[in-house]
């Protein structure tokens, strides 16, 4: 392992990370070698990486069954779109604002339901996601533009001299945010909060018995996860310059779910792999036209068959198969 400057030493790198400098170099060179179409694909890869990381907090670290995460993504995107087009608030400033809005929404909505167990929580999250999407379509108070959505979002920038307006700039912008988030999440994993989260995931009753405030930690996970998704929404809105309800369906929530599972629950590099699969696969397989979704579905099944722990599972979290099934054979999860 190379000697890292003190500032970075606190960030725990996953094992097998020796290739990181090479990969980083490739990442930086990539947009200068590829055309705009390929850069944009990489941009959306970054968005899905961010969304995957955000759901990973809730699903991967704490094990909460969240199938409505697209709702938080939508809130972030629409907050940006509405505040920017109606009140002229600069898009870049709206990045933390959208994150905060989504986080606040999660706090308000999840507080009364956080005590629900596994599958019931799942259905409630599905319901929340659907309510948000339907509300956006129905255009309450003429705010959300109905099925057409809101358009005319400005590019993010600082004043007039630094504006993010090209594919390359968006690429670096989103991946910078991804890198910062990943670093922060890796630190969180090693902290007390991360350990508490994992404890809750493994055995909630024991965690409570050990004195962990389960409710607060779960809520924290939701709030952080929603905030990160909201930030992703802001960047997405800035890039597409408009937001509409089709981008925030239950299907998107399912895709995010797959990213975390296929990549590896609780694994930051795993989420990146999962995001790559979900965003690059449909583009690479365009020539197959309508057969590509058949292949997509098959690959998902095969992935779970051969690598149920994920493509890049969390090192600490690879117990032997019968340990996993031992916990799930009894019907109380």
């Amino acid at each position, binding site marked *: 392992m190379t000697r890292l400057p003190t500032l970075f030493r606190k960030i725990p790198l996953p094992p097998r990370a*020796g290739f990181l400098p*090479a990969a980083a170099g490739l990442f930086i060179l990539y947009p200068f070698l*590829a055309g705009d179409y390929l850069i*944009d694909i990489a941009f959306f890869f970054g968005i899905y990486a961010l969304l995957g990381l955000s759901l990973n907090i809730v699903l991967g670290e704490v094990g909460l069954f969240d199938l409505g995460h697209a709702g938080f993504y939508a809130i972030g995107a629409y907050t940006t779109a509405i505040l920017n087009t109606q009140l002229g608030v600069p898009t870049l400033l709206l990045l933390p604002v959208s994150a905060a809005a989504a986080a606040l929404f999660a706090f308000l909505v999840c507080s009364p339901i956080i005590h629900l167990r596994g599958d019931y929580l799942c259905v409630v999250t599905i319901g929340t996601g659907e309510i948000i999407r339907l509300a956006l379509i*129905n255009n309450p108070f003429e705010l959300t533009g109905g099925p057409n959505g809101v358009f005319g979002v400005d590019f993010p920038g600082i004043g007039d001299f630094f504006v993010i307006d090209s594919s390359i700039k968006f690429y670096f912008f989103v991946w910078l945010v991804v890198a910062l988030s990943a670093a922060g999440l890796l630190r969180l994993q090693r902290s007390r909060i991360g350990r508490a989260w994992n404890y809750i995931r493994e055995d909630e009753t024991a965690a409570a018995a050990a004195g962990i405030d389960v409710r607060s930690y779960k809520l924290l996970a939701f709030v952080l996860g929603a905030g990160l998704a909201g930030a992703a929404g802001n960047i997405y809105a800035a890039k597409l*310059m408009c937001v509409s309800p089709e981008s925030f369906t239950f299907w998107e929530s399912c895709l995010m779910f797959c990213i975390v599972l296929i990549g590896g629950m609780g694994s930051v590099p795993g989420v990146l792999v999962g995001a790559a699969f979900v965003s*690059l696969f449909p583009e*690479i397989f365009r020539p197959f*036209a309508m057969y590509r979704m058949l292949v997509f579905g098959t690959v998902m099944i095969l992935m779970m068959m051969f690598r149920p722990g994920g493509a890049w599972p969390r090192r600490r979290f690879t117990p032997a198969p019968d340990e996993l099934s031992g916990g799930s054979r009894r019907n109380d999860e």
Partner: protein
Amino acid sequence: MKKAVLFVAVTALMLTGLPRTAQAADPVVIGLQGPITGPWAYEGEMARRSCEIAAELINKKGGILGGRKVEVRVVDDAGEPKTGALAAQKLVGQKDVAAAVATYGSSISETASTIYEKFKKVNIGYGVTAVRLTQRGFKYFFRTCGRDDSQGAFFAKEVPSRFNARRIAIMHDNTAFGKGLAEDTRKALQDLAGAARVEVVFYDAVTPGEKDFRVILTKLREARPDVWYYTGYYAEAALLVSQARSIGVTCPFVGGNAAINDEFVKIAGIEIAKGCYMTNEPLPSDLPYPEAREFLDAYRAKFGEIPSSPWPIYAADALNIIAHSIDKTGSTRAEVLADYLRDTVNGVPGITGPIGFTPQGDREGVPFYLYVVDASGRITVAK
């Protein structure tokens, strides 16, 4: 190390998608962006087929620019804005694509047309009726289909007086197109004043993909409208009318231009369908132009039926007018084509009538008629 190699390999594979320069005898490539997969897959498929037929007809007549064939390059946007952005990005990156027929769905077109505008590529929308799309001052965006406000205005002018209706019910499907048309119609109705004043007694939306509308239809029945306008698609329209009649809704039914077609008649059955009205631009089967007959005959010969909605036919017209412009200007450069389309194209015969564009890029002067399904199931102009 293994992962780095894999990453490089994948990147290299993707970079091979970069285009090469075109040569003289190469075909002229026109892009088609549409929802080949996803919830609007049936529209995308028909649009693809229509452009295929249109290109075949052109090539059969000798092609353009001195014998070069027209080739259609299809990119799927899955009916979703993000995929639409990628699809548009893909087409602009391919230097041999002269122009694009794009796309279907106003919210997808919003982003896609912005990309085409930025990279200066002519794009003609065929299923995009939101008014605001041509209010952005874009130079390269056109559309061969109509707009929501013109159809709404026609409804307000024709329907209440024809049916002596004071109480109007409007129903839509919460899609960009359906809701847009419903709102513009309601606005137009509200503008009617004096002796022509009407009351919109019912205004609500159904969810496309659902099948059971009895609940909302019972509500409609209790509102006692004199006429009922549905601005959504034929799939729901057929179900709505059948179910409505079975629970005792007796007022005349008028559909928007996506609501009534042969599929509607087939699904609802002639007994139910006859007597239903529709606001529509002139149907291809009505047009005296040989272009329409030729196109429909060729389509029917290859696929066994004609398109069941108006949008694929607009796509064919978009392709035709692009090919026509390339041929007449002798150039595939976007600035030349855009200027030609805007300034010179006027009354060029098309499948859906004479084609011309306003300075903003809208389809010019498309008239609307009131159609009715007659006793034998055919859709004809209402007398």
